[in-house]
């Protein structure tokens, strides 16, 4: 019951909901860049939302399934094919033993998520299976996938098994079948090329010049190639403070927009450090993390100011929609 890695792809890592409760020990959260996509992928295969799956970056891996599996692929459109045929996103797919999943060029977005019904059986470190590359912990030996790896995938849950049998007859028929149904499209937004990211003012917003504050909301920023799971380094325009003032280190979080002395903003992402000492001009709202995580290097984005009440409205809205999906799936497909 496993899955062989024939080619690893650019950066394919195991991520679950993240490593919680250890930030005060300086241990980063890790977890998916696009948590919404991983949660939807998990729900589609009958898992709880934060079970470990694969985060696939830009150039996807080639995987061979060594047993029957129930899968779902969400997030970016990276031209996925299963046994040479185009694989639809955002729906459960029953595959037979021996099938091969491959990827082509990135069409929209840059991070796809592959969930296996029954999850991945790698050891949890500090309560999480998420890969933390710099510390070399979690996931598969604390690192990205390599050719020749064998992913321990225990195979579908009992409910997943039942859906698998409904979709694929045991002996004959096609190599794989996807469901005809798919979730509420609001939960699987197609990544947009130049998204508008909604942001709250950060604690040090007032330290910036009026010109820089205006530029932050009005100008377009480019995600530079020096961006990774820790954060996006943005280029142009540079943001200036009214006066140099030492800032004491304090906690930061996913989506914090901080500005080092160079003036080029950094948006902190899944592998961000727990604390930082740069002024925080803004904070991306949770409901837009998914959109943010799908901007590829070289991509552009804009920031739009919203209020905390709006941020919470969209947070709760997304949460409700996810829970409706989970209830619907439990009612009709994963009894």
């Amino acid at each position: 019951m496993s899955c062989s890695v024939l080619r690893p792809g650019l950066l394919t890592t195991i991520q679950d909901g993240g490593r919680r409760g250890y930030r005060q020990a300086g241990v980063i959260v890790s977890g998916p860049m696009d948590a919404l996509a991983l949660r939807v992928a998990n729900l589609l295969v009958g898992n709880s939302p934060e079970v470990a799956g694969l985060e696939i970056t830009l150039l996807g891996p080639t995987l061979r399934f060594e047993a029957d599996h129930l899968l779902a692929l969400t997030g970016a459109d990276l031209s996925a094919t299963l046994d040479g045929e185009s694989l639809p996103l955002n729906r459960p797919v029953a595959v037979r033993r021996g099938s091969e999943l491959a990827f082509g060029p990135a069409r929209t977005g840059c991070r796809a998520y592959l969930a296996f019904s029954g999850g991945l059986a790698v050891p949890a470190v500090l309560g999480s299976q998420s890969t933390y590359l710099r510390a070399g912990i979690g996931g598969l030996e604390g690192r990205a996938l390599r050719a020749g790896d064998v992913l321990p995938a225990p195979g579908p849950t009992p409910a997943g098994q039942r859906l698998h049998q409904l979709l694929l007859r045991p002996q004959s028929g096609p190599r794989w079948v996807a469901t005809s149904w798919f979730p509420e499209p609001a939960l699987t937004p197609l990544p947009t090329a130049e998204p508008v990211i909604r942001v709250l003012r950060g604690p040090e917003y007032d330290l910036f010049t009026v010109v820089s504050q205006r530029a932050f909301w009005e100008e377009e920023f480019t995600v530079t190639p020096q961006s990774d799971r820790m954060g996006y380094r943005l280029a142009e325009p540079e943001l200036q403070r009214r006066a140099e003032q030492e800032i004491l280190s304090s906690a930061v979080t996913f989506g914090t927009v901080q500005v080092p002395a160079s003036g080029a903003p950094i948006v902190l992402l899944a592998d961000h450090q727990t604390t930082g000492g740069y002024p925080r001009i803004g904070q991306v709202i949770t409901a837009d993390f998914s959109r943010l995580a799908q901007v590829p290097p070289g991509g552009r984005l804009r920031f739009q100011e919203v209020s905390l009440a709006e941020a919470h409205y969209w947070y709760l809205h997304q949460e409700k929609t996810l829970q409706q999906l989970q209830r619907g799936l439990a009612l009709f497909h994963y009894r």
Partner: protein
Amino acid sequence: MDQLLPSPFGPTPVQLYPLGDAAVVLQFGEGISEATHRTIQAVAACLDAHPFPGFLEYVPAFTTLTVYYNPWVASQAGQQDPYHCVSESLRQLLQQVPELPAPDAVPVVEIPVCYGGAFGPDLDLLSRYTGLAAEEVIRLHTEPEYLVYMIGFAPGFPYLGGMNERLTAPRKTQPRPLVPAGSVGIAGRQTGIYSLPTPGGWQLIGRTPRRLFTPEAASPSLLRAGQRLRFVPISEAEYQHLQEHEL
């Protein structure tokens, strides 16, 4: 969104403001002080004892306690305003914070350090910069009892207070691409211990065989905010011996 709440101790009110839609910051004054640190420790301990609905975790820093929460749970599944619920819970919490035990009740953690040589390649440089003999640098560095103000930057990395100001030295102009874990360094008026092998620009004066970050352990960080520590000089032979025992 900023609010002022009555402080559990002393007259200065506590500032409360959001860090995005899933965290709030309690800010206790503007400067680094042991009194502020102790207040933060007391509030954190009280939060451990009385977590509010939706509370996830907190990160203490020099003047702030950042509290992470789940807005869905905090709002009772979208029934109420999450920020209002969280700020109200914290306001009530601040009114019931008990005093912490006196600081001398906290045991001192000893960090053995082999100074100079291959383990402390910048000791001579620091000695020249400060005009102190290498032995004097070591003596001044091992003299005080340091306070762990916060853990951050990397897993288990302590921000320490209490270094003798005569040891102040600038960062390296060119950071090293890889600093070994356990390296003890000085940057500006701060001293610290690298907990993971990372790139770094601190002046390295020694190295400890103790592991500051042990991911296999239930408590992965050797140090915690609020602890006190002392550096103890050891020889290279002792370093090797301790390192074997540590593993």
